[in-house]
């Protein structure tokens, strides 16, 4: 079926225009997909490097539940879970964390108050100044961002509501809980502050070496899936998770836009092509070509166009994501996700079929007598 390969390029200008249009849409899709996946992968690597393999929170709060105001998106977790999780196969160690927020008269935004035992501090980031706190004292460490805004340094006092804490260290947050404006003190201090010694807000899990987090998370989900929320990736979790799901929605929106514009572009290109080849198609019908074969030919042509566009778009997307990562996120390396490429190819096929269908149908209905007309 040489015609399928050669016909689309007879009218080069129009074909190129359609290809560029669809190519850009697919390029944007691919770039967004690659960047998102690369960022997730980069952050996940960081988290896992800091020793966290999984993060477990209480069950997700239904979005219509008014308690969401108090808990955030997850309910608290009873501290008995600590043992349950620790005794799960593959788990090496667990650490309980209590996160809450407090208001400070100098600041408009609430500040994170994180409670954890000092042995778990390594999961939060690096102490760049001073030392870790003592679990039994009223001391804590302050994130560098908060220290700067509050103009505090090691040795100063820090007041949270009516409690006075001594700042013993400043740390640089670097993982999924390490929000930039935070104060960390012992788990006990925070539980006292919230007057809730029964619960935790999340449990950090470190697995035995060689154990796959996907495997353990699946086991936990199977066993306790209704009561806890297990995440192995930043993409499942918290603010980053929401940002990522927004990015994914944006990517979907771009894809749909590409589908629409691309579909219309292909429709237009193929309509013109069919119209210009009225006589040629008449000949094909005159010599006995069935409608099915003519539809196949036109659809095939439109698919060739969109496949070329998807190849160009994918290359464009790879280049674009390389540039974005190079200039905006130098430490994140590019991840070529097959899913994204697959998604681009499937979209191209859908565009080709949707945009090509009507012209193909039209072509098959052209009267063969057109071939004989001589004007």
């Amino acid at each position, binding site marked *: 079926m*040489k015609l399928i390969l050669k016909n689309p390029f007879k009218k080069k200008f129009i074909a190129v225009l359609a290809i560029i249009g669809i190519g850009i849409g697919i390029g944007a899709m691919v770039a967004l997909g690659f960047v998102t996946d690369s960022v997730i992968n980069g952050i996940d690597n960081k988290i896992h490097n800091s020793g966290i393999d999984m993060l477990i929170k209480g069950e997700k709060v239904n979005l219509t539940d008014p308690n969401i105001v108090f808990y955030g998106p997850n309910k608290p977790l009873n501290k008995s879970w600590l043992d349950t999780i620790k005794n799960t196969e593959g788990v090496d160690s667990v650490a309980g964390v209590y996160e809450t927020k407090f208001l400070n008269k100098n600041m408009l935004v609430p500040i994170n108050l994180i409670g954890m035992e000092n042995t778990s501090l390594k999961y939060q980031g690096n102490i760049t100044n001073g030392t870790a706190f003592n679990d039994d004292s009223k001391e804590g460490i302050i994130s560098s961002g908060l220290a700067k805004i509050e103009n505090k340094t090691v040795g100063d006092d820090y007041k949270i509501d009516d409690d006075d804490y001594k700042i013993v260290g400043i740390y640089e947050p670097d993982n999924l809980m390490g929000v930039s404006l935070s104060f960390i003190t012992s788990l006990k201090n925070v539980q006292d502050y919230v007057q809730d010694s029964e619960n935790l807000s999340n449990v950090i899990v470190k697995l035995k070496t060689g154990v796959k987090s996907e495997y353990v998370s699946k086991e936990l989900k199977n066993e306790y899936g209704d009561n806890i929320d297990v995440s192995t990736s930043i993409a499942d979790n918290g603010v980053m998770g929401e940002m990522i799901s927004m990015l994914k929605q944006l990517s979907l929106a771009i894809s749909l836009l590409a589908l629409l514009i691309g579909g219309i572009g292909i429709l237009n290109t193929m309509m013109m092509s069919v119209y210009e080849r009225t006589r*040629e198609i008449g*000949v094909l019908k*005159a010599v*006995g*070509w069935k409608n099915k*074969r003519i539809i196949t030919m036109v659809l095939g042509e439109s698919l060739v166009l969109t496949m070329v566009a998807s190849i160009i778009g994918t290359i464009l997307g790879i280049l674009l994501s390389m540039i974005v990562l190079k200039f905006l996120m130098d430490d994140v390396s590019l991840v070529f996700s097959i899913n994204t490429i697959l998604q681009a190819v499937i979209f191209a096929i859908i565009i080709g079929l949707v945009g090509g269908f009507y012209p193909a149908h039209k072509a098959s209905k052209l009267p063969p007598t057109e*071939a004989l007309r*001589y004007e």
Partner: protein
Amino acid sequence: MSFMEIKNLKKSYENGLIKALDGVDLTIEKGEFIAIIGASGSGKSTLLNMLGGLDVADEGTIRIGDYDLRNTKKLNEFRSKFVGFIFQLHNLISNISCAENVEIPMYELKMSNKEMRKRSLELLDLVNLKNKASSDPKVLSGGERQRVAIARSLANSPAIILADEPTGSLDSKNTENILKLLQELQIKENITLIIVTHDLDVAKHANRIIEFLDGKIINDNKNN
């Protein structure tokens, strides 16, 4: 029973305002070489369309072989198996080779690519253009293109060849060559050849000349 039987065939356009065929009766035997002449607009092409199963008449009967062309759902099959068309314009497809053009009617005949290529080369040889098999029709002269079109019309070994002004855009020398070629093939393969023309010199080659006026046959002469 004759090969083709046409009775009281009528076809009109523009809601009956134009009577392109106004009651045509005609019988044609296998292997005849017929020229259809007549003024422009007299219905020649319309008749050819009906004979080739490209269009369906409004009234009357038209039977060719076993096909009742006014009441069949298999016009495609009829064209594909029995008819070869030659048009005034060569209607070759550019960007593909002459051989590929000749192969176009073979797609519906369940032939393998190899068989198709073999046959298209044989046919191009028959019209003396084997050396142009891989050329784009764009680079051929008018006469050569029409010869490729003839090769294409023979692709399905048709029982009938219908040619609408096949020499209309050729000079007299090329016209003479094309006609000789068609006549040779027609005799050799016992093809029923029907040519529409307004050129009496062309018509003289035929065994039978049918003249049209206003959608009706006004003369039907056997030459020999």
